[in-house]
């Protein structure tokens, strides 16, 4: 019994790691560009597909994919920002949401047309196969790797944003882009880089997810709706908030799967409703 519970909690922790990574990217993009990147899920899916296609067609290993897939999808993000998103700054921010929603549909439709509905398995890299026996449960190495990397990436992002000069520019741009530009900082370039980085982060999460979930075109849209709920619950104010909320909700989901499996797919939305009742601004949020 304890074994089943521990197993579900571990799965929850894995899901939570992806929620944390994805909500972090959303928060970084929203913070500076004031755009809710609806395409985040599609970009996550494209990261996973880039890894899978790299391995299948070109024999590119997992480790290279971890670097190349985010770079490729991130460059696509740069193009999107330069060609499309840029035209919408200064308008109501719902247009950014609608534009990226349209882009998500395009990406999802294209991959669906090419690869259908079925999942494509991606092998766990050799180095991370196997696991640790803990007596009460078996802990696969790759799962540990996912949790550790997710926390490390979130930590590194926190360090860059809060402790470096680049991060200081980013925070200044979030506060007041016009003033920052007056100081001679190339703010439009910063917007491009930030969007590209956020997209690359989504693609990175996609590569990490490839060996855990099946690689398939709809993997992004199903996760992004949950991530939005996570963002509503945690607020997009702080990075620590993203990590705590993401992992926490993953665990809540895992616990529900153990106690009352029928409710596991809706529990996040129920938590969202409760948080809205009790603390409308979100757990870590300040209303913008």
């Amino acid at each position, binding site marked *: 019994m304890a074994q089943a519970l521990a197993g579900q909690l571990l799965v929850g922790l894995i899901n939570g790691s992806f929620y944390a990574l994805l909500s972090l990217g959303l928060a970084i993009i*929203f913070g500076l560009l004031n755009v*809710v990147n609806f395409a985040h899920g599609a970009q996550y899916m494209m990261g996973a597909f880039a890894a899978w296609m790299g391995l299948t067609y070109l024999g590119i290993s997992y480790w290279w994919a971890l670097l190349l897939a985010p770079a490729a999808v991130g460059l696509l993000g740069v193009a999107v920002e330069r060609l*499309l998103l840029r*035209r*919408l700054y200064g*308008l109501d*921010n*719902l*247009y950014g*949401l*609608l*534009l990226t*929603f*349209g*882009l*998500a*549909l*395009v*990406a*999802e*439709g*294209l991959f*669906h*047309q090419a690869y259908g509905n079925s999942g494509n398995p991606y092998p766990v890299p050799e180095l991370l196969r196997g696991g640790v026996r803990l007596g009460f449960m078996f802990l696969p190495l790759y799962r540990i790797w996912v949790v550790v990397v997710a926390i490390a990436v979130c930590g590194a992002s926190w360090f860059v944003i809060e402790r470096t000069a680049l991060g200081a520019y980013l925070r200044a741009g979030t506060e007041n882009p016009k003033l920052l530009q007056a100081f001679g900082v190339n703010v439009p370039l910063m917007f491009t880089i930030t969007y590209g980085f956020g997209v690359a982060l989504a693609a990175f999460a996609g590569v990490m997810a490839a060996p855990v979930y099946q690689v398939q075109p709809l993997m992004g*849209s199903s996760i992004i*709706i*949950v991530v*939005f*709920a996570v*963002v*509503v619950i945690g607020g997009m104010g702080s990075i620590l908030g993203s990590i705590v909320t993401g992992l926490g909700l993953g665990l809540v989901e895992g616990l529900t799967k153990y106690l009352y499996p*029928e409710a596991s*797919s*809706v529990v*996040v*939305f*129920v938590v*969202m*409703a409760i948080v*809205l*009742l009790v603390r*409308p*601004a979100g757990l870590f949020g300040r*209303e*913008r």
Partner: protein
Amino acid sequence: MSARAIRTWAWIAMIAIGLVAPYLVYPVFAMNVLCLALFASAFNLLLGYAGLLSFGHAAFLGAAAYVTGWALRDAGLPTELGVLAGTAVATALGAVFGALAIRRSGIYFAMITLGFAQLVYFLVVQMPWTGGEDGLQGIPRGKALGLIPLDRPYTAYYFVFVGFLAGFWLLHRTIRSPFGHVLRAIRENEPRALSLGYDVSRYKLLAFVLSAALSGLAGSLKAVVLQFASLSDVHWHRSGEVVLMTLLGGMGTVLGPSVGALVVLTLENQLADLGSWVTVITGAVFVASVISFRRGIVGEVRDMVRRSFIGGQVS
């Protein structure tokens, strides 16, 4: 020609087109257009007039369709009561979701409504009476007023047309009432509306509930005439589709959403054989309208008409 005359002519034209439509196109297609036109018009009350982007309106359409389907097929209720039951459930859902969602604004509002719609989607997938992946099929149309059998496509069409006109007229009245003007004031400047003494939350909630109720009416009518309720009615694709209809037709215009519904459904109908390319094209149309066609078809036409008939005064 005065603005009032233009409006009168637009009403006459709409009713005339509505009356002859089933003889010009396939009646089932015309019924589908009417239902989704009502759905988009109800959605537009929120987006176009109150400035609230709901990304979960499929929940109201779909829930009402399922409840009506169940009421007619499994509970054996008469048609009108079935439609009423579906609309009532959508209204209740709207009251609950609306009360929670209006606690946050802007993009959070969109994410919250999307989340609640997903909740409804999973409930519909899991509940025993909804038929899971198959949905509800073979819903009987029954008789209108207990007298007129709705089996023939033309009678069914006029049944929906009456429902559509009633809903559309109610929306039109709402938009032009003092209540509608307060909604616009909230859209333009919420703090100012608040400081003028309007209870902004109550206005938003009322608009949300009304929009949900009429979306429910659309869903119920759809279940009656198409004789099925399926998961695609509660899916988030449906919520996105209604945003596209409204945007493409012209948000904040009375006729826009209906025109948008007609265009989008015609497009989907023409492209039905192309599989997932439909999704790709829908997405591309979305991107194109956001980038360069934000006023929508009716918005553009309206401005053109105003310039040529009334002279200047483009709002």
